[in-house]
């Protein structure tokens, strides 16, 4: 009697997969949420200052279904002390009222349910750059950039289980059974197994060089530096991802321009006046010496606050830009004007006269402008087609 009343067993649960499937769906929704908040997330400081490989935590509003519920901030709560609690004792800090805080939510205290989605920078980049490409890319003569493509295009009788071709395996099984007079599935043997295998194709792609120019003069404040760093951070990420071997030349300038390495480019902060033409002249020199437009797709990008030295230099810049446009696929100019209420800088005004569709000018006014700017620069265009 009692033996029937209680019993104990242990089964094999290794094939049970329900929760992981729903978890995957939740993660997919998190990705969607990230995608719709990219403009805010892209310029997060935690990302720009990370070494680029780490997992970053992106604060997004937890994916939750709304319910009728009480207002937690106006509500009383119940707690339990160690025996000596008194009226007036402070038992915790509430998070600030001002929207999504950077700080961590206070443990089990009531409050808004923020959720730190953990994504790697690469995953974020995948989401961001899905539909972006280098604009106006052309076939050039010397094909120097090679990239490896993996293609599943062959079937073998041995291989890792993860690349088992189930359909072919079952067909083989039916075929073998049919030979013995029983055309049905069953009794799968090693001999039936078929695996997909791949070959690596080396493809030569179009050559491309990016000439990244950055204003490091005294008028570039913390905000301006931050925005240009943020933009270039993602630009470099993007290019290294999409194209195995894009070359990047880094130029910084104030009144003089110099070519620097990547590390310096991102960290350098100097003082002094601004002479934008110096950077453009150096870029043209570098193009002349190292990147023949017959062989290379060339993409100069320049970030500045537009606070240039004078009208003379502005006019010179316009001429130099025209010269570069002859040789380049696209010329990008990004101007960072914090809270710039519509008024154009003198440099941007001068650039209004550049009518070439290959010239892309963008103004970024706050952090959330970085992502739209990236999209504007890297939306795919066909050569010769105006956008």
């Amino acid at each position, binding site marked *: 009697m009692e033996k029937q009343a209680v019993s104990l067993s242990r089964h094999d649960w290794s094939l049970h997969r329900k*929760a992981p499937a729903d*978890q995957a769906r939740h993660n997919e929704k998190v990705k969607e949420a990230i995608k719709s908040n990219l403009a805010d997330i892209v310029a997060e400081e935690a990302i720009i200052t990370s070494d680029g490989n780490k997992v970053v935590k992106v604060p997004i509003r937890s994916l939750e279904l709304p319910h*009728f*519920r009480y*207002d937690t901030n106006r509500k009383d709560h119940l*707690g*339990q002390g160690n025996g000596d609690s008194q009226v007036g004792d402070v038992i915790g800090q509430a998070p600030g009222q001002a929207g999504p805080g950077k700080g961590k939510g206070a443990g089990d205290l009531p409050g808004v349910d923020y959720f730190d989605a953990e994504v790697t920078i690469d995953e974020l980049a995948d989401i961001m750059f899905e539909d972006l490409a280098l604009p106006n890319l052309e076939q050039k003569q010397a094909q120097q950039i090679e990239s490896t493509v993996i293609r599943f295009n062959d079937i073998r009788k041995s291989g890792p289980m993860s690349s088992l071709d189930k359909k072919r395996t079952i067909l083989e099984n039916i075929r073998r059974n049919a030979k013995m007079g029983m055309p049905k599935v069953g009794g799968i043997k090693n001999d039936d197994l078929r695996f997909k295998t791949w070959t690596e194709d080396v493809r030569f792609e179009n050559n491309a060089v990016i000439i990244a120019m950055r204003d490091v003069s005294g008028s570039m404040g913390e905000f301006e530096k931050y925005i240009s760093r943020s933009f270039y951070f993602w630009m470099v990420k993007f290019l290294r991802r999409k194209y195995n071997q894009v070359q990047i030349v880094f130029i910084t300038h104030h009144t003089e321009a110099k070519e620097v390495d990547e590390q310096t480019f991102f960290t350098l902060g100097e003082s002094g006046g601004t002479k934008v033409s110096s950077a453009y002249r150096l870029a043209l020199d570098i193009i002349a010496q190292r990147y023949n437009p017959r062989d290379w797709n060339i993409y100069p990008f320049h970030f500045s606050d537009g606070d240039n030295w004078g009208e003379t230099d502005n006019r010179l810049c316009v001429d130099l830009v025209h010269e570069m446009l002859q040789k380049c696929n696209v010329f990008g100019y990004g101007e960072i004007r914090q809270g710039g209420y519509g008024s154009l800088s003198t440099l941007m005004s001068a650039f209004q006269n550049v009518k070439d569709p290959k010239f892309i000018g963008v103004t970024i006014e706050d952090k959330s402008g970085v992502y739209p700017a990236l999209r504007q620069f890297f939306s795919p265009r066909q050569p010769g087609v105006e956008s």
Partner: protein
Amino acid sequence: MSSEPIMSGKELGELERAIEEIWNVALRLGLDPFPTHFEIVPAAIMYEFGAYGLPGRYSHWTHGKAYQRMKMMYDYGLSKIYELVINTNPCYAFLLEGNNPLQNKLVAAHVLAHSDFFKNNLHFRHTSRQMLEVASINAERIRRYEFKHGRREVEEFLDRVLCIEEHVDPNLSMRRKEWDEDRDREDRRVQEPTSPYDDLFKLDERGQQSLGEEAPARHRKIPPEPEKDILLFIAEHAADLEEWQRDIIHIVRAEQLYFVPQMMTKVMNEGWASYWHREIMHQLDLTEDEHIQFANLNAAVTAPSAHQINPYHVGLKIFESIKERWDNPTEEEMRELGRQPGQGLAKIFEVRELESDVSFLRNYLTKELVDELDLYIYKREGDQWVIVEKDWQKIRDMLVASMTNFGVPYIVVEDGDYRRNRELYLRHCYEGQELDLRYAERTMQAIYDLWGRPVHVETVVDGRKMLISFDGQKATQIYI
């Protein structure tokens, strides 16, 4: 592929014998559980069942989210589920693979007390005891709908229904019967002749009708009385839902009704199980080492928490206090209430049968207990959470209020044909706690999608009546 079993056959046998002994001890102490089947499961499965509430329940991303969170807490060593019990007959209980023998014994004792509670507490009387089968049939139905109508379509519909899943009424069948009786009585009153000349008057009416004037149809209010079961009301009265959509509402509602008694008795049920696992463990022949382990584990389970009530701890203390007070009544209690000494055990069994958390706390949380448990009320003041109240009655009343309707705002359907325009008028039965208006508006959007017409919620904000309306485009708030 098979991995080395974590527990050997010998250990499994020992545990089975221990569980049989615990069963016998439990019966001897007076517990009356369902037959109980224990299953040892790995952590991932345990957390899946915990997240879904029931093994085999339908798929939804909210379950995936709960699972991820629980599993993460486990992986980081922040929290651990030792057991899980399902209210079915026979009762199913899951033990975490890797529990040591002492943990398993404690858990088994705890589980049998839950099983006893499920079987004997009044509020569980109408729960389906075949819920595992029901849940997997429901899951299969939803899977079929996904196949037929598309996964996203079904998911989005479920999203909306789940926004109002709490709004069911366990006492509905009773209440509906009353309405029907009222309605019948009303109809009879209209039909029964009030004077011997009624049939003559009727001739007059016929004359009027022939003049082309119809007798005005009495506008019957829908629902006749405020209806707490919003899910059922929508399933039955929303105009544009497809059959499969109504079925999904019924599924969500049926599963919710199954969980409601557990939500209504959380403090009691955990207190009861904590009380009895200790009593049962004391009857077992434990080694000295096991005694120490037990004391540590027991202390961890019943530890107080600064920010919320630990139901294990508070529930346990109340049961202990009831037993003590009915074992040793005061002179006055003996004189005034005729209470006899030594009735403690009988009393706690009576309490476990009749009460739910609300009545349990209202009737048995005494001043002495509030002081001993050092309970307090805290609220937000500026950027800090501050203790604002230590008065025991206020604390008790607040605790009771927070358990009422298991902590969810009580909202009823007032009118399903508001303004004679098929708009849905809901009323929040305000009892001192205001709604989170942002959430309310988002929830109303989901209701709008289900109902298909504008939705209104009457509530109270800053002491004044307010009507929130959602017309499919935007929400508006006006004081009324």
